[in-house]
């Protein structure tokens, strides 16, 4: 959105485009953008940034391609699959978030004696928020470590996070894969943790990064650089001070301050590394989600020149 503005407003000299619409999913991963907005990092770079709330990576990708979004916070699994499917040519302009323990948890009904560990997931119905994304990958990997092979088409059921509790309660599904604040909410309602899906093979797994189209990055190098610089400051702040994140969360989500103070947060990254992206590609290949030989380099945008 927004008509391209040729002249820059800030002092950074000739941005190709200064008004940006950034798509984010309302989860903790996106905190840096709110921080950057609040602290005026974008303004300093002459950028006028608007947040567009997205439901998920698969839905936001076409918007990026069509130009309704200039950048988005994309989860890597969805992004790699989209790139692989030829749904567009994308660039990761910055890394954002990686998993920490207990970020994403597999839960079951508290009084369900049949499911206690990941090994009990054989043949069970498991709710995830999106098919073919980080959720299915995490659950499949966790189960595999426990010696169980998940039949993706039979066992995974897609549903929005808030509805999973009721589905668990009524027996529509046997297990759910949830993040905060739903972990706390379900625990309160009597669900028990079965496994941390971000342990073992997925420990510290890269979750999300800031994505633009190849076309946009090549046509607007200065804008991209300005965006990267502003974001980098925010990422650093988020990585170093949990309080900053806790303050930002209630502003773009409905996670209240009290919840924000206690939930398990992942790690905010401060730099983009090809090795980390390669790890995502390797894992996806291992689970048959993309063929071997996926070109990670094609996804890498040049890092921002220091100002």
């Amino acid at each position, binding site marked *: 959105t927004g008509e391209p503005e040729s002249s820059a407003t800030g002092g950074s000299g000739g941005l190709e485009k200064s008004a940006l619409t950034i798509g984010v999913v309302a989860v903790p991963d996106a905190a840096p953008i709110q921080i950057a907005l609040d602290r005026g990092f974008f303004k300093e770079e002459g950028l006028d940034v608007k947040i567009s709330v997205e439901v998920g990576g*698969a839905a936001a990708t076409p918007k990026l391609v069509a130009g309704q979004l200039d950048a988005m916070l994309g989860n890597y699994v969805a992004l790699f699959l989209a790139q*692989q*499917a030829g*749904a567009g040519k994308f660039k990761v302009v910055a890394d954002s978030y990686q998993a920490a323990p207990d970020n994403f948890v597999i839960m079951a009904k508290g009084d369900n004696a049949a499911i206690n560990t990941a090994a009990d997931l054989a043949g069970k119905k498991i709710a995830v928020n999106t*098919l073919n994304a980080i959720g299915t990958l995490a659950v499949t990997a966790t189960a595999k470590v426990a010696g169980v092979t998940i039949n993706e088409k039979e066992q*995974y*059921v897609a549903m929005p996070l808030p509805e999973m509790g009721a589905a668990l309660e009524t027996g*529509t599904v046997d297990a759910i894969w949830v993040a905060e604040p739903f972990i706390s909410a379900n625990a309160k309602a009597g669900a028990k943790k079965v496994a941390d899906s971000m342990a073992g093979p997925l420990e510290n797994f890269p979750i999300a990064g800031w994505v633009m189209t190849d076309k946009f990055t090549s046509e607007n190098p200065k804008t991209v650089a300005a965006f990267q610089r502003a974001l980098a400051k925010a990422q650093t702040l988020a990585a170093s001070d949990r309080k900053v994140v806790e303050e930002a969360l209630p502003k773009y989500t409905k996670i209240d301050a009290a919840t924000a103070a206690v939930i398990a947060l992942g790690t905010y990254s401060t730099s983009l590394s090809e090795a980390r992206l390669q790890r995502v590609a390797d894992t996806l290949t291992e689970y048959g989600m993309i063929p071997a030989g996926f070109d990670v380099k094609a996804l890498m945008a040049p890092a921002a020149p220091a100002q």
Partner: protein
Amino acid sequence: MASRQSGGRHVRRATSGVLRFWIVPVTLVLWELLTRVTESPYFPPPSRIATQFYDMWLSGPASQLLLTESALDTFGPSLGRLLAGWTIAGVLGIALGVALGRIRGLAEYTDPVLQFLRALPPPLLVPIFFVLFKIGTPTQLAVIVFGVIWPVLVNTTDGVRAVDKGFLETARVFQFSRYDILRRVILPSAMPKIFAGLRLSLSLALILMVVSELVGSNSGIGYSLLYAQQSYDYTGVWAHIVLLGVLGLLFNALFLVAEGRVLSWHANARRNV
């Protein structure tokens, strides 16, 4: 003489068939050309969609009418729920619509609630249905019924209210029983409008079938569509779109046959001779 006549009729029927469906090949050719020129991965050419369609669903054995296992597994439950949902919505919608149209007090007491419900997006109701109806199929049926009942209800209510005064006065004067008034005066007279509603809701039922399978389901056409969508399999998505369109065509054709029978008086009475 007789045979020549019937031969002529065959020819005429064949030409009218051609005239009727000319738009199909024309659209297909245009579509193919357009997609081949633009070459967008999101808009594959229809020939490719057809191939995938065939591979997924139509390459089965002749004993299964060429349907593949996956087609049988996917279509069966979905279409079952669709027809069940549509039937329930049709019966409920007509019954409620007649009651609302004829019983003034009832309409006044319930109108706001109904108008309220009508404006609620079904996707937002799914969580509520989840809590109220528990598990799978009942929830899905509830979603379908809730989504498709409105055209029938609104059209029936309006149709029943609009019965010509002359017709009703005749019924009153001759003291028809309530049943006869309903069965032989009100319903036939409102039938054109009721059928408009039923026809609208039939294709809506296909849509709601898909919507109901997007959440909390791991089978059916809706799930299969979601899976294709979330795997960035755009040709697959299009195959589903085509499938829904073809099913819609099919249902509509059957529906029009039924309507032709019930409403033949109407078509003839309204024809300019």
